């Protein structure tokens, strides 16, 4: 490598590091604020005295623990529905030739392109007529459906990478396609299933606008919506507590993202391009 090239690379690295510092700053900043003593949020960026008290307060009283519990129920419930239904569909679409397959594929693509924003108001109206508002069932069904198209695209790739010989061997042993699916294919696809489940968990966990509309009763709210309420109440006087709530909601997404980074990225590109 010539010295000129070295200099260019050094410059590019320095530039990207600066860019990344800017990108990550708001996240780090919220963490720093959450460790500030009360009313010290904006006195310095780095806390003069560190305290854990806001986290303890968050979990020892008030609605926050309930919100977190609700978030866990909604996010896990939705992810189970999406993962199981998309696994079944992806298996059929990857393995079988059948009439209407192209139609099914284009239908799923079309549904992926219809944003939740358009359907959420009619869902509210329909759910209110069916007395389903403020129930776990409603949001789990809605989250479940939201995750299906992406789940199918991720899992289809997984199923296609498994040699067809394995299914055929199972058929020769007298297994039905359903048995072959559960006994032979599914165990091999476990990493794909876990990835699909966790990605959908993160999406559901983060979702803010849909639960804001579909769940309005206080003790049924998700943490994201609860945070929106907190924002109105705490902003300007208890910013440190608000920051702690933000951080608690961020942490699971950050951890799962770091563990599953490549799946997230692939899901993003494939969802957008192969879509």
């Amino acid at each position, binding site marked *: 490598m010539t010295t000129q090239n070295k200099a260019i690379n050094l410059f*590019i*690295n320095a*530039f*990207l590091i600066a*860019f990344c510092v800017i*990108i990550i700053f*708001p*996240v780090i*900043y*919220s963490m720093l*604020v959450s460790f500030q003593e009360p009313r010290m949020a904006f006195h310095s960026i780095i806390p003069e005295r560190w305290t854990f008290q806001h986290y303890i307060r968050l979990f020892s009283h008030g609605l926050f623990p309930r919100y977190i519990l609700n978030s866990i129920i909604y996010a896990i419930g939705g992810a189970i529905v999406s993962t199981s239904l998309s696994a*079944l*569909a992806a298996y*059929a679409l990857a*393995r*079988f030739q059948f009439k*209407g*397959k192209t139609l*099914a594929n284009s*239908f799923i693509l*079309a549904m992926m*392109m*219809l*944003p939740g*924003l*358009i*359907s*959420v*108001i*009619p*869902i*509210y*109206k*329909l759910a209110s007529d069916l007395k389903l508002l403020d129930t776990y069932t409603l949001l789990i*069904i*809605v989250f479940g*459906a939201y995750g299906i198209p992406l789940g199918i695209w991720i899992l289809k790739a997984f199923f296609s990478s498994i040699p067809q010989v394995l299914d055929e061997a199972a058929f020769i042993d007298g297994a*039905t*396609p359903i048995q072959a699916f559960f006994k032979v294919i599914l165990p091999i696809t476990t990493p794909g299933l876990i990835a699909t489940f966790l990605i959908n968990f*993160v999406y559901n*966990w*983060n979702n*803010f*606008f849909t639960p804001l*509309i579909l769940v309005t009763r206080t003790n049924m709210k998700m943490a*994201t919506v609860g*945070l*929106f309420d907190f924002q109105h109440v705490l902003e300007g006087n208890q910013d440190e507590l608000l920051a702690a709530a*933000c951080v608690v*909601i*961020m942490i699971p*997404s*950050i951890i799962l*993202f770091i563990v599953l*980074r490549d799946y*997230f*990225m692939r899901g*993003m*590109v494939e969802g957008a*391009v192969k879509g």
Partner: protein
Amino acid sequence: MINRSKAYPYLLVAPAIIFLLVVTLYPTLYSLYLAMTRTRMGVMEFVGLRNFRVALNSTEFWQSMRNTLVFTSLYVLLTTVIGYGIALLLNRKLRLTGLFMTIIFLPWVLSEITTGVVWRWMFYQDYGILQNLLGPLFGGYSFIARPGGAMGIVIAATVWRSISFAMLLLLAGLQTVPKEVHEAAAMDGADGWKAFWKITWPLTLPTTIVTIVFMTIQAVNGVGMILSITEGGPGRATEVLGLLMYRQAMQFYNFGYAAAISVTLLFLNLILAAFYIRSLNRETALAG
């Protein structure tokens, strides 16, 4: 395989399709009907195109349309330009590429509300860190309290959150440019800018168009961050179509009117989806 197995694929696909029909397609179609009704005292009545007439004759609708347009164009411009620049740099296979990607990607896996809360802090009136840093440069301008400033904040925040999307799509496009093309160009003495404009840019143009349309779709349907940062304010300065719909439905229980805005958004999305599929097909045709 035996004959009865013909039913299996349908049984396997059916549950997923049914969920999508019930949760996505049916409500979308129902919004077409809802948009032509009015609810009074709990009784729904059919009013034809009245909600659309009301919307088209109201200033709030056109202001939201204008806000959506301003928001969308700047968001698309910035995500695409910055995303392209970063993708070009990351395409050089640096040692820290993995770390850079992780960090650039991080904001996107965080909720719109948590990141919205932080962005709002940074522009607090008297003590927000960015307000204090940037305010003096603009003669003490208070960003969050002014229409233009508030629009600037929500654009900056949403661009920050989704730059990785544009970057990733463009990087995938850049990686399809064969290395030999660059080597051949270098042999002919083309370097730096010239090579970029003569080779890289035309070869990645289809991907760039895909990215632009994709980011437009994202922008038109983006509400969460704006809601958490400005709630459409000050006044109606950042109230995009999605937020107008939200307020009409959830604050005024004006479901017919809200559904009329849903339908407007649906048509915008259908037009964009048509563009998107066309741009994707063109991209694959060129790549293949």
